[in-house]
């Protein structure tokens, strides 16, 4: 029951984000969407994912988007030609049909999937038993999500950290001005 309510709220949030003309409100709604998603992850017993969703999705992404908004205008541009063209019914009907077909195919695809938490599901038979049974002995770490991330998939996490570092470098290269090398504003 609560799961259905959460999913319904999630869909409402997503629709509101798309419909919103005020971009700041849209960003805040996106944060709310992430927070609900975090609750959904918790309901699925994926606490590590929920934690990441809450801190990254609802927290830092919202902040970075607001920072990006401070460089542009708060409202969505309207009255331009592409906006009008999108609104014409000529494109709306095929778009609706396309979305309905895609949705139907996706739902059809889920019919073949194993039940949630099924111990005989292929995903739970491959490497999961080894992680559950041996990760403490092999890595000395109680939380086996951390054991997988840091030890079994250590290269992935190294790559992930490097990606974040690279993102930081890119932002610095694109946005930082050369005259502020000491970290203070130059007097001009």
């Amino acid at each position, binding site marked *: 029951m609560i799961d259905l309510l959460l999913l319904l709220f999630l869909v409402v949030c997503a629709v509101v984000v798309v419909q919103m003309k005020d971009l700041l409100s849209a960003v805040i709604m996106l944060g709310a969407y992430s927070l609900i998603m975090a609750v959904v992850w918790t309901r699925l017993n994926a606490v590590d994912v929920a934690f990441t969703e809450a801190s990254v999705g609802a927290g*830092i992404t919202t902040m970075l988007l607001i920072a990006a908004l401070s460089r542009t205008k708060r409202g969505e541009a309207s009255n331009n030609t592409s906006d009008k063209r999108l609104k014409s019914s000529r494109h709306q009907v095929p778009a609706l049909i396309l979305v309905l077909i895609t949705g139907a195919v996706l739902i059809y695809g889920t019919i073949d999937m194993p039940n949630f938490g099924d111990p005989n599901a292929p995903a739970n038979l491959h490497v999961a038993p080894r992680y559950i049974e041996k990760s403490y002995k092999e890595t000395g770490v109680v939380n086996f999500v951390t054991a997988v991330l840091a030890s079994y998939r250590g290269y992935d996490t190294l790559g992930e950290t490097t990606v974040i570092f690279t993102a930081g470098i890119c*932002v610095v290269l694109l946005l930082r001005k050369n005259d502020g090398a000491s970290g203070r504003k130059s007097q001009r």
Partner: protein
Amino acid sequence: MTVPGRDRTTRGHIVGEHVIGRTVAKLLIPFIQLYGFYVIAHGELGPGGGFQGGVILGASIILYTLAFDIEAARKRLSQKVSDLLSSTGVLIYGGIGLLCIAAGGAYLEYGKLPLGDAAFASHLGIYGIEIGVGITVAAVMITIFFETARREDA
């Protein structure tokens, strides 16, 4: 940092008058940072880890920036320091991997580190890389925020 949509000429003064915001931020930031360190340190015991803890640490500095202003925040954490920290974290991660090779194992094979038995060495190795991830994530989040929110006309 400005609030989007406000008048451009009053920038920098908007946040300056928010006594409540500043006081609450001052009160909260130590606890947020303590929590960030807790999350990094307890990643191997419960949910969390370097990534989430780093984000929380970064968020605490961003909160300071929002409550005060970007110049005040840069005085607390200069550009040089945050740049150094963002590369230090990756170097810690990569360095631990190289130490594992030096100790006779494969890259990132923490069990081979000369720190007692394999499980304990592995535990410490994982602890080390979590700290590295946390430092990089926190510093990069702060850098991205500072560079994006800074005024162009300054």
